């Protein structure tokens, strides 16, 4: 029997860079995290923060021609970086599955829903067409698609966006994977449909015990689904903590900025507070803290430390790590002064 709290995926010092004509792009720098069986880790960050790339690296889906990957990715005791690609392929879609942002472009436009699902079953199982079709029908039914038999013979363009994402989820979970990587699964959907898809993911996770790596920029989704959170900025993990800690005791100015940009119904403010400035260029990384150029509080750190030295990911409390030169007293003072984090 597998233990509920056993570490399923362990990523250590993962770095990914791409060679481009403009120079070396450091998309992910030294990221480490763990995902336990049946738990959800949310990776949060804006576009270009490296959250998708790090997951594609875990899946072995980055082209070896253009990307350089270093570090360790251990899935259920099996080292994936540097492993035989054939071994990694056999895990994909079988024990590790992935769903993507835009379900229309992620489903093949020329093949019927049923055929795409049947294919997913048959890659990893020696099973007859009719049994695979039965399995596909069961799975579509499970993700809440009505008139399953009819849907199996339809093409992706005949379905609504929400239905397509349900099909993607059915396809990902059809081989009962232990880990599901969900790359912005609700971003391309209507708000009402988003909630349905999140509910579905939560129910399925309960039912199948699947661990989920949820990649998102939506903190609402994080609060809904995650057990642990990793905030990424400029290719680095800047804060890692259990979900409650992120919302109640955030320790890093970038996380504060993210929290401040969530609309809040009970606050009488007409404007949101965006984070000033732009994400860093991944080609010429700042020497110091990646967030320093946009950080409002860097002047409170003496000796211009934020601009010159990259802070380490330091533990601030049990299971909570942040990459910031501010002292804990300074952070507490700023949080109180600006009413950051929900009062508990």
């Amino acid at each position, binding site marked *: 029997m597998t233990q509920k709290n056993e570490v399923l995926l362990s990523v250590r010092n993962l770095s990914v860079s791409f060679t481009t004509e403009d120079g070396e792009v450091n998309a992910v720098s030294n990221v480490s995290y763990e995902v336990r069986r049946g738990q959800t880790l949310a990776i949060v960050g804006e576009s270009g923060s490296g959250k998708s790339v790090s997951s594609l690296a875990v899946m072995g889906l980055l082209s070896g*021609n253009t990307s350089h990957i270093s570090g360790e990715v251990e899935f259920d005791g099996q080292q994936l970086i540097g492993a035989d690609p054939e071994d990694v*392929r056999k895990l994909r879609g079988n024990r590790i599955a*992935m769903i993507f942002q*835009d379900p229309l472009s*992620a489903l*093949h436009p020329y093949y019927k829903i049923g055929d795409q699902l049947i294919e997913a079953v048959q890659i990893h199982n020696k099973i007859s067409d009719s049994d695979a079709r039965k399995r596909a029908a069961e799975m579509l039914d499970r993700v809440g698609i009505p008139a399953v038999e009819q849907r199996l013979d339809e093409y992706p363009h005949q379905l609504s966006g929400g239905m397509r994402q349900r099909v993607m989820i059915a396809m990902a979970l059809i081989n009962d994977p232990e880990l599901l990587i969900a790359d912005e699964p609700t971003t391309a959907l209507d708000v009402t449909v988003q909630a349905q898809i999140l509910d579905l993911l939560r129910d399925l996770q309960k039912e199948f015990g699947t661990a989920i790596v949820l990649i998102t920029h939506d903190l609402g989704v994080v609060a809904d689904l995650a057990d642990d959170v990793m905030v990424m900025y400029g290719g680095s993990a800047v804060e890692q903590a259990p979900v409650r800690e992120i919302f109640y005791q955030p320790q890093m100015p970038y996380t504060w900025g993210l929290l401040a940009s969530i609309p809040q119904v009970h606050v009488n403010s007409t404007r949101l507070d965006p984070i000033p400035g732009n994400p860093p260029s991944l080609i010429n990384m700042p020497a110091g803290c990646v967030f320093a150029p946009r950080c409002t509080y860097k002047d409170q750190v003496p000796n211009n430390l934020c601009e010159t030295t990259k802070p380490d990911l330091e533990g601030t409390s049990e299971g909570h790590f942040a990459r910031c030169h501010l002292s804990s007293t300074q952070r507490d003072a700023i949080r109180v002064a600006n009413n950051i984090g929900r009062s508990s």
Partner: protein
Amino acid sequence: MFPYIIRRLGLMVVMLTLLSIVTFLLFNAVPTDPALLTCGKSCTPQIVAANRIRLGLDQPLYVQYIDWVKAIFVGRTYGSGTQTFPCHAPCLGYSFRNGEEVTVMIKAALPITIYLAIGAFILWMVFGILSGIYAAKHHTEWQDRVIMGVALVGYSLPVFFIGLVLLIFVVVRLHLLPYPDYIAPQTNPVQFLQTMILPWISLAILYAAYYTRLTRSQMLETLSEDYIRTARAKGLPESVVIRKHGFRAGLTPIVTSAGLDLAGLLGGAVITEFIFSLPGLGRLSISAVTEYDLPTITATVLVAATFVIVANLIVDMLYAAIDPRVRLS
């Protein structure tokens, strides 16, 4: 699907009718008196005048057209009295230059052109598509650059150059093959193949180069699509990802080009037929043009254009077979 085909077939008839009118007018637009061309060396104005009446050329244009179209379905007889020239349905005219029914001449030439076109088509499709896929698979590596370099050379060389070089080296210098001398495959299959292999290759080189580039660019585009990432995420082996998911999606423009290129060749591969002395449709139409053989010109134009129109219809129907998003209604 079915009503669509019916409608397209109807449209095809309209197109062919318009086409026949245009080619027929072309016939009459030539600055030569057609009656004069029917008359041999010892020509007198009396004979010309008599021939004009025999051929119906004294009739108004629309009557001539109707007679011409009618002949395609029921045949007609040119001349009168003792001098009659029967032209059996489908009668496309009577070539007085050659003293033969045009239909008979086309029937003799057409198989040669069909063999030439289809043989070359198979060669270039196989080589073009395979090397295009291979190049795309090895994008940014040396294999890709080598294939693209070779394709550029193949694409740049004119077909008469390739044909002549092949002829001079393979036949004249190295004596690997006898001189091309066309013979029907059912009469002597070995000689048929010996004659056809060089024309097939020289035609195929040009087109294969084009199809390599086309396939490669199509594959590069589709392989960067999200659904290819999904296919890989499902754990499909790379060969299946490329063949089943990538190639299938990039097929549409290839099918379009292939259909029209094949149809164009079926109308006659003029230069290749000339270099390798193949008495096909292309040679027939060129000699008809140089000899002012008007009925033959009209007929070959009509046949070639019919191929293109039919190919268009087939390509459109293949679209729907390839891409389910194309609704044929």
